[in-house]
């Protein structure tokens, strides 16, 4: 897990190259102002997926922030394309999707698009910065298979769903089972908790 962003935390996005994509110019303006306020110097704006794809082909990005609902090609299809065909320098870039509403038919598609995070519109600077900080510090592994490319969709490791054995080799059953080693003694436990002097 990553720690929360504190107001006193120092962040440096001066060298980050960021792509912001939104088909609604007014919305793109708001998003751009927010990102510029965070200290980003290299920001590229795109109002269509076609424009964004051209930028992806010619530049290396450190962060992509994209709207979801767009005509012709939407943000979900764009991220799916990015993860498969975005080139080695951009395929694994952290992606934050922003959306005001998710259509019922798109809920699973959105989950499976391969983004790192989805943020609800209207975006606020505080929430967006927290999410940028989060995606910069997260340690989720990347999954690449026929049907999905993107960060592991499991945010928490709480074992497989109840009543199932799980799909992964490293899934552990929900039941703890019998102890395999003797219980620790009270002294052993107390020693673990005892405050100790440390040399710094």
């Amino acid at each position: 897990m990553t720690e929360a962003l504190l107001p006193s935390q120092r962040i440096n996005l001066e060298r980050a190259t960021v792509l912001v994509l939104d088909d609604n110019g007014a919305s793109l303006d708001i998003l751009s102002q927010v990102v510029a306020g965070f200290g980003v110097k290299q920001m590229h704006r795109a109002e269509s997926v076609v424009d964004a794809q051209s930028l992806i082909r010619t530049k290396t990005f450190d962060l992509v922030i994209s709207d979801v609902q767009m005509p012709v090609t939407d943000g979900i299809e764009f991220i799916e394309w990015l993860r498969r065909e975005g080139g080695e320098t951009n395929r694994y870039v952290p992606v934050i999707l922003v959306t005001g509403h998710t259509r019922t038919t798109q809920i699973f598609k959105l989950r499976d698009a391969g983004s790192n995070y989805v943020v609800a519109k209207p975006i606020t600077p505080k929430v967006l910065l927290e999410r940028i900080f989060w995606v910069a510090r997260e340690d989720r592994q990347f999954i690449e298979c026929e049907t999905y490319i993107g960060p592991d969709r499991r945010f928490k490791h709480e074992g497989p769903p109840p009543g199932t054995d799980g799909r992964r080799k490293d899934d552990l059953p929900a039941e703890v089972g019998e102890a395999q080693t003797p219980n620790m003694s009270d002294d052993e436990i107390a020693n673990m908790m005892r405050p100790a002097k440390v040399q710094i």
Partner: protein
Amino acid sequence: MTVRKFQPPNRLAKMIKERGGILAKDAIAAAEAGVESLRESSLANLDATIAEMERRFGKGAEGRDAESFEALYILSSRIIDVSIFVSDVGIDRAAVSLCGLVDGFAESGAWRWDAVDVHLNALRLLRSIGAQLPAEQREAMLAGLHQVSRHRPDEG
């Protein structure tokens, strides 16, 4: 099916903790100041979108039956896009409710104009006197909208 699990390089992770930079609270303040410069244009955009909704989908709009669900969905999404300046009065939530409503129409293939009318009335009301309404009245109105939006007549 072959599944590859790996840790890709995260350039952003290295950059964000480099020396220099700014405090998070200053970054947020600078971003808020930048957004504030867009207040007038965003509100003008919001009003124009509500006016377009009224014109094409309002009670007296001729030919509203011939309009597409997608057109109203897009207009409603655009309200959410620029509603950062009016979220305190719940315009964003009313627009989200309208998006949900229209999404349901797209599934069922039929309009429920009374439900659209009540959403457009609410948007107009919240925009004009939303800030003067007592918070509990606004909340009750928004809760009512969500109830209308979630209602599926064919499900009883």
